[in-house]
C-alpha cells in the first residue's frame, strides 16, 4: 500500500452507515492530451466505469446502490494531461470521493501504461461538482 492510499484509508469516512444525501453520479476525466479516437475513449471509459463500480461495491456499497437505482448517471469531462488527472485524484480523495485510475494496456493507438481516464465516484452530485465542476464536457 502506498503512502497516499494509507493516508486515505485512515482519513476517509467509513463506508458502512454513511449514505449519500442527494443523487449520485460518476465522472470520468479523460486524458485529452493523448488524442485517442472516439472508440478508444469509449472503451477506456468503459474500463473506468466497470472498475469504479467494483471498487464501490467493496468500499461504498450504499453509494453504489443509490447510483444504480437512479439510472447510473455518468458524465465525461476533459482533463489536460496525466498530471492533471493525478492532481484531481488527490483532491477527490481528500474529500472522501472514491477514485479509480485507468492505465492502458497499449494494444492500440497509445503507448502501454498511459494514464487514460480518472473515474470519480459514485458520489453525491454536490461533492463531485466541487472537484470537476469547472472542467469542460467531452
Amino acid at each position, binding site marked *: 500500500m502506498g503512502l497516499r492510499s494509507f493516508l486515505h484509508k485512515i482519513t476517509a469516512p467509513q463506508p458502512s452507515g454513511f449514505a449519500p444525501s442527494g443523487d449520485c453520479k460518476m465522472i470520468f476525466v479523460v486524458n485529452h492530451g493523448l488524442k485517442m479516437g*472516439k*472508440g*478508444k475513449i469509449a472503451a477506456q*471509459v468503459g474500463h473506468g466505469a*466497470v*472498475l469504479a463500480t*467494483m471498487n464501490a461495491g467493496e468500499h461504498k456499497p450504499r453509494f453504489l446502490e443509490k447510483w*444504480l437505482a437512479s439510472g*447510473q448517471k455518468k458524465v465525461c469531462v476533459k482533463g489536460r494531461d496525466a498530471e492533471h488527472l493525478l492532481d484531481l485524484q488527490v483532491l477527490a480523495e481528500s474529500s472522501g470521493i472514491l477514485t479509480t485510475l485507468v492505465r492502458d494496456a497499449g494494444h492500440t493507438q497509445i503507448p502501454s501504461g498511459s494514464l487514460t481516464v480518472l473515474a470519480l465516484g459514485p458520489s453525491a452530485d454536490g461533492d463531485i461538482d466541487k472537484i470537476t465542476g469547472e472542467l469542460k464536457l467531452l
Partner: protein
Amino acid sequence: MSSMAEEPSMVLVARKDLKMSAGKLAVQCSHAAVTCTLNAKKTHARLVERWSKAGARKICLRADDLETIQRLAGQAQAAGLVTTLVKDAGHTELPPGTITVLGIGPSPRRSIDALVSELKPY
C-alpha cells in the same frame, strides 16, 4: 491458439448513425459495460472473474443502424451470451428511449467473434 479463443472478451456495439459526441458515446458504452458486468456476475461469476483478471478486454465497434444492433442482440441472446441494450434517458443530444449501444459479454472471444466479425472498430 485455442486458449486465446477461449479468453473472455466484451464488445460494445454503438450506433454510428446517431453521430454521438465522444463524451456521449463513452458514457453510453460504459452504461453497457457496467450493466453487462453486473448481469454476468449473477449468472457467470467465474467468467467475469477470469475476464477482469486478464485486463477486462473491451472493444468498441460500430453498427450502421438500429436494425443491425437488434439483429445482433437477437443472435447473441440465442447463442446464450450476456447481452444488454442501452436505451438513452434522453437528457442530452438524443430523444428519450433511443437505443444507442449493444453490449455483449464478457463471453469467450470465439463466440463473440462469430457474431461481430464483420463490424469495424468505432
